[in-house]
């Protein structure tokens, strides 16, 4: 099992909320409708789908062990 580091670019977020649907324990929208992280790292593989689902390409996921971008 891998642990993932999540990076979000709030300046790109348009508030679609697709990441919340994929990984509700990791992402949330703030009062302005912009994404925030509930955790910085997770072993929940759903973050890979969350990154892929973001139409804005505002989410990047890295493997903690290797530092390689996973999604």
């Amino acid at each position, binding site marked *: 099992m891998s642990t993932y580091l999540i990076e979000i670019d709030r300046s790109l977020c348009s*508030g679609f909320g697709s990441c919340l649907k994929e990984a509700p324990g990791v992402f949330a929208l703030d009062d*302005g409708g912009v994404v925030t992280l509930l955790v910085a790292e997770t072993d929940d593989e759903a973050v890979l789908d969350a*990154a*892929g689902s*973001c*139409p*804005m*390409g505002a989410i*990047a996921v890295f493997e903690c062990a290797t530092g390689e971008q996973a*999604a």
Partner: protein
Amino acid sequence: MNGVVIVGAGLAGSRCAEALRAGGAELPITLIGSEPVGPYERPALSKEFLAGTRAQEDLFLRPPGSWGERDIDLRLGSPVERIDLRRRTVLLRGEELGWSHLVLATGSRARQLPGTAFPNVHHLRTLADAIALRAAIQADSRLVVVGAGFVGAEVASTATALGARVTIVEAETAPLARVAGAEVGRLLADRWRGEGVTLHLGARISHVDQDAVELADGTSIPYDTLLVAVGSEPASDLLGGPAGIPTDAVGRTQNDGVYACGDVAGFDGSRAEHWTSASGQAVAVASAILGRPERYASTPYFWSDQFGLRLQMVGTTAGWSNVELDGDPTSFRARYVDEEGKPLAVLLGNRSAEVAAARRELATAA
């Protein structure tokens, strides 16, 4: 009268209203939409909504009550009939509303094809269009799409998944050829054909009957439902012309106190029809109204979901001379460069992890 009147309650108009409030504006704000529903996500109309996997109430940009909570007076269901720049009013349902700041965010409308005014001929722009189209697309019914652009491709994709038999008719020799070039266009055409779509490329339409599209070469393509997806034009009836409403880099028009943003705006010299530009321009207009103008200048970006491909384009391909294509119809990267090899745009197919790197590369090259 001191107040902001925003004409158009799509993404640009509603984001502008929100950004004004978020920036501390205490002026009255009136947000006027011609459609009977509050601000919603238009990109889903050709995809999840048409597919039936997302309900109407899940399309709203904000919960319906949130506009009132922010003291934004949302008026829906009627278009503004007229604006008076000298007296600073708009006419809405016979009522004159005054303004100190007027924001025109009327968007764009679907281009028509002459001689196609039949009940089974559709366009896709509004929620009402999408509801009508959804009712028309049945399993095993024949859908013909005129125009292989993004809307046409996305509807074709959704309809194919719903079991319709889909034919696309396109004047160019490859899909998305003007944006992506012939080489990438051929790759997309392969993908679409592999998904069961019939393509007529380089097609000249001689005329359209109520049940068939007739091509100049004598081919007759029968249909139950026809979608005309031949692009859009700015809804610039109130102000501006065929190129939209010209503005500077914060959305100011040449008329004092009048701004434009979104699809209708010829924003700082160019008109875009993308989510990101509408949203960013709206924020710039709000900043100008708030008296601390911040220009909108960001790398163009858009995405499209079609036939199991997520296409994401960063930058703009205008003026490209060479394309470096890597991959196949299931996953690819096309890099567009100018004569000197300077990167102009990157189009990714199912490679969303590379978007951030593409943005960085183009920002550095700019």
